[in-house]
C-alpha cells in the first residue's frame, strides 16, 4: 500500500488496464504490470511457490488429525500391497527355484509331450508299446512274456524305460526350437527309469528303480546336470557321447557304495562311474547321468516298447532374456501344438503342497485384500478431502474474492492431498518392508509337491499274491509325487517400491481431484455466505 499523498487515480488507471493483461493471468506470465502509481512491477514466474508451500504446511498442520487418518489409511493400503507383492514375488522366486531344481539353473522353459495313444505308454498291449507279463506263484517256475515271447525260469529283468507322463519328442524338434528368434539355447534330454526285478520260483524280489538322465553333451549347461557340482572324478567329455560311462549323484553313490571307477548296471549294460556330483538341497536330482546317445540306444517306450533312438522326452530352453519367456512359450506352442510348454509361471498351476497354497494365498486372498483396503483408503481420503473442502468453502470464497483463480486454489488442495498421499506412501513403504521382514522371519519352509514320472509301479494281482504280476506302461506304469523343499522369502523389489509411490501419488491425486471438483462447484458469492 502506498503511503498518504499518493493518489493513484491521478494516473488515470482504469479497468481496461486490468483486462489487457496477459491472457495467462498475471501470476503465470513474465510480463510487466503497471501499478496504480505507474511504476512497473516485475512479475516473477512461480513467485507464489514459497507461499504455496507455507500455506500447505500450515494447513496440513491445522488438519493434522484428519491428515493422519487419510495418511494412515493410504499407508495401510500401500503397505499391504507391498507385503503381498513381496510375498508373491517370493512365491514366484520359489517357483523358479523349483523349476531350476527340476530342470537346471539355466532353464527358462521346458518342453514335454504327453504320450500319444498307442505309444506304448498308455496301456499294455497298446500300439507302439510292449506287452509284459509275469505268471507264476510260490513253488512255480515263473513265466515271463515280453511281446508274447515267453521264457520260463528264474531270471532278472532290467529295462530302461521312459517315464509314463513323458511322450517322445523327435530330436529334430530341439534344433527347430534352438532356431527360434528369442531362444539362446536348447538341449534335449531323456528322463528315464531303470527298473530291475528278479523272479524265481521261490520269490519275487521287489523291483528296484534308478532314475537315469540322458544328458545332451552338446549342451551340458542346460538341463538337470547344469546345476550340479562335481564332487569327485570328472564330468562328461565330448568323446563320451557313445561310451557307457556315468556320473552318479553323490547321495546315491554313498547309499550304494559307489565311487569313481565303480560299475553300475543299466539295462543289463555295465557303466563305469567317472564322477560323482552334488545338487542343491532343494532339488530332487536323478540318480545317474549317462550320455544322451547311449540313453537313446538303450531306452524304450515301456518294457518291450519301441526304441528311443532319435528321441528325447524333455527339451530344455534358455531364452535371450526373461522378458522373452512368454513370447518363446507362444512360439514353441505354435511349433509344437500338442507339446506341454512349462515356464516358471505355468509351473505354478502344477505345483501343489504348501508352495501351491502360499501361491494361492498371495495371489488370490492377498491381492483382493490389498485391492479392498486400497479402495477403502482411496474412498476415505476422497471423502475426507471433500468434507474438508466443504468446511473451507468460505476460505476459498474469500480467496476467489481477492483474486485467486480457481486453478490456483485447486492446485493448493491438490498439493495438500498429494503431500498427504506421499507421506502415507512413505509410511506404507515402511509398513510393507516391515511386513515382508515379518514374513521372512516367520514363514515356514514350503514344500512343492509335483506329480512326476517315477517309472514302473509294481502291482501284484490275485489273492494271496498268486496270479499274474504285470509290469507295463500306462495302467501299471504310473506317476509319483515329488516333494521339493523351498525357502519362501518375501522380496521387496525396486519395482514394488515404485508401485507404492505410484499408488501414493494416485491416492493423493484422486482425493485432490474430488476436492477440486467440489471447489469448481463453488460460487464465490454462495461460498462467502457460508457460516463456518
Amino acid at each position: 500500500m502506498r503511503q498518504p499523498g499518493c493518489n493513484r487515480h491521478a494516473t488515470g488507471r482504469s479497468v481496461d488496464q486490468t483486462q489487457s493483461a496477459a491472457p495467462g493471468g498475471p501470476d503465470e506470465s513474465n510480463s510487466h504490470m503497471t501499478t496504480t502509481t505507474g511504476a512497473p512491477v516485475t512479475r516473477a514466474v512461480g513467485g507464489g511457490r514459497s507461499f504455496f508451500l507455507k500455506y500447505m504446511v500450515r494447513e496440513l498442520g491445522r488438519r493434522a488429525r484428519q491428515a493422519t487418518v487419510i495418511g494412515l489409511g493410504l499407508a495401510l493400503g500401500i503397505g499391504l500391497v507391498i507385503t503381498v507383492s513381496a510375498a508373491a514375488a517370493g512365491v514366484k522366486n520359489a517357483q523358479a527355484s523349483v523349476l531350476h531344481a527340476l530342470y537346471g539353473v539355466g532353464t527358462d522353459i521346458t518342453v514335454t509331450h504327453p504320450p500319444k495313444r498307442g505309444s506304448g505308454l498308455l496301456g499294455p498291449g497298446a500300439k507302439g508299446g510292449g506287452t509284459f507279463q509275469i505268471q507264476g506263484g510260490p513253488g512255480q517256475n515263473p513265466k515271463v512274456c515280453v511281446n508274447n515271447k515267453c521264457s520260463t525260469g528264474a531270471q532278472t529283468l532290467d529295462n530302461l524305460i521312459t517315464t509314463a507322463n513323458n511322450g517322445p519328442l523327435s530330436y529334430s524338434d530341439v534344433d527347430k526350437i534352438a532356431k527360434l528368434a528369442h531362444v539362446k539355447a536348447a538341449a534335449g534330454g531323456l528322463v528315464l527309469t531303470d527298473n530291475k526285478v528278479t523272479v524265481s520260483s521261490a520269490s519275487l524280489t521287489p523291483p528296484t528303480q534308478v532314475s537315469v538322465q540322458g544328458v545332451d553333451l552338446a549342451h551340458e549347461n542346460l538341463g538337470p546336470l547344469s546345476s550340479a557340482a562335481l564332487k569327485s572324478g570328472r564330468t562328461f567329455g565330448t568323446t563320451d557321447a557313445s561310451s557307457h560311462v556315468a556320473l552318479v549323484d553323490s547321495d546315491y553313490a554313498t547309499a550304494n557304495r559307489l565311487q569313481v571307477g565303480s560299475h553300475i548296471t543299466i539295462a543289463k549294460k555295465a557303466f563305469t562311474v567317472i564322477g560323482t556330483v552334488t545338487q542343491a538341497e532343494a532339488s530332487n536330482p536323478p540318480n545317474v547321468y549317462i550320455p544322451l546317445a547311449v540313453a537313446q540306444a538303450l531306452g524304450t517306450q515301456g518294457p518291450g516298447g519301441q526304441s528311443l533312438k532319435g528321441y528325447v522326452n524333455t527339451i530344455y530352453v534358455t531364452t535371450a532374456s526373461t522378458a522373452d519367456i512368454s513370447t518363446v512359450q507362444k512360439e514353441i506352442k505354435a511349433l509344437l501344438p500338442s507339446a506341454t510348454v512349462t515356464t516358471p509361471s505355468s509351473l505354478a498351476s502344477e505345483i501343489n503342497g504348501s508352495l501351491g497354497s502360499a501361491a494361492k494365498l498371495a495371489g488370490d486372498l492377498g491381492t483382493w485384500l490389498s485391492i479392498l483396503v486400497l479402495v477403502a483408503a482411496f474412498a476415505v481420503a476422497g471423502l475426507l478431502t471433500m468434507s474438508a473442502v466443504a468446511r473451507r468453502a468460505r476460505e476459498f470464497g474469500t480467496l476467489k474474492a481477492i483474486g485467486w483463480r480457481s486453478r490456483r486454489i485447486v492446485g493448493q488442495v491438490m498439493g495438500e492431498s498429494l503431500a498427504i498421499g506421499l507421506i502415507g506412501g512413505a509410511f506404507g513403504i515402511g509398513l510393507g518392508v516391515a511386513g515382508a521382514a515379518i514374513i521372512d522371519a516367520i514363514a515356514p519352509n514350503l514344500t512343492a509337491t509335483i506329480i512326476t514320472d517315477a517309472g514302473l509301479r509294481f502291482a501284484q494281482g490275485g489273492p494271496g499274491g498268486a496270479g499274474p504280476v504285470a509290469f507295463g506302461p500306462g495302467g501299471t506304469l504310473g506317476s509319483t509325487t515329488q516333494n521339493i523343499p523351498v525357502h519362501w522369502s518375501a522380496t521387496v523389489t525396486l519395482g514394488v517400491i515404485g508401485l507404492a509411490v505410484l499408488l501414493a501419488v494416485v491416492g493423493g491425486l484422486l482425493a485432490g481431484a474430488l476436492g477440486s471438483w467440489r471447489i469448481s462447484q463453488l460460487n464465490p458469492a454462495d461460498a462467502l455466505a457460508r457460516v463456518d
Partner: protein
Amino acid sequence: MYTLTNVTRLYQKGRHTVPAVRDVSLEIPDGDWLAIQGRTGHGKTTLLQLLGGLDHPTAGKVELDGKNLGRMREAQLTKLRAVSIGFVFQTFNLVQTLTAADNVEAALIPLGIGWAERRHRTAEALDSVGLSDRARHLPSELSGGQQQRVAIARALVKEPKVLLADEPTGNLDEDTREDIISLLEKLWRQLGLTMVLVTHETVIARRARRIAVMNKGRIAVRQDPSSQA
C-alpha cells in the same frame, strides 16, 4: 466509475422467485464513498457482490469504467478482482492458518509479484493499519478490531481502485467500530479510493459522502448524509 443500469437479481428459492435487487440504476463516480443502508435481507450484500463481480445480475448492466461485468468471463473477473477491487467482510474472513502478514501477502499472490516486493508491500500495508508489531500473529491471536485491520490491509495492499466493504464494523464493539471506520475514512482520503460500504448503522453511514438506502431490493440515494434522521 460504476454505472448500474436497471440491475435486477432474482433468486430461485424452491418454487418461488425472490428478487434480491430490483431495477437498480446508480452511478458511483471515482473517488466516491457510498454507504448503502438497509435492513437485513433487503439486498445490500447482493448489490455489493454484483459490484465486485462475485455475482451476476439477472437483468440490467453493472459497468466499471465502461466495461460490463456481466459480459466478462470468470477469468477476467478474477483478474479484475485481483488488481482493481478490494473486499472487506463483516467476519474478516482471514485464513486462520496464516499469520497476519501472510494473509495480507495472499492478496499479492495472484499478481505474480516476487517475494521481496511482496514482503515489502505487506510490511507497508500492515504499518498503514497500525499492525507492524502483529505481523507474525495468527488471526486467533488478534482481537476483532486487529483482525479487521489485517483484512483492510489485505484489501488495500494491492492498491485497488475500488474498496467494497460489507458491514466492516458489524462484529466490533463501539470503540473499535469508530477506530475502523476512521481508518477506512483516512485511507479513502489518502488513497483516493472509490469506496462502497454496506452498513445497517446510521452513525457509520453518515460518515460517507453519499448514502443509498435499500428497501426490498430497490434503492434510493440521498446525496446529503446529514439529512439522515
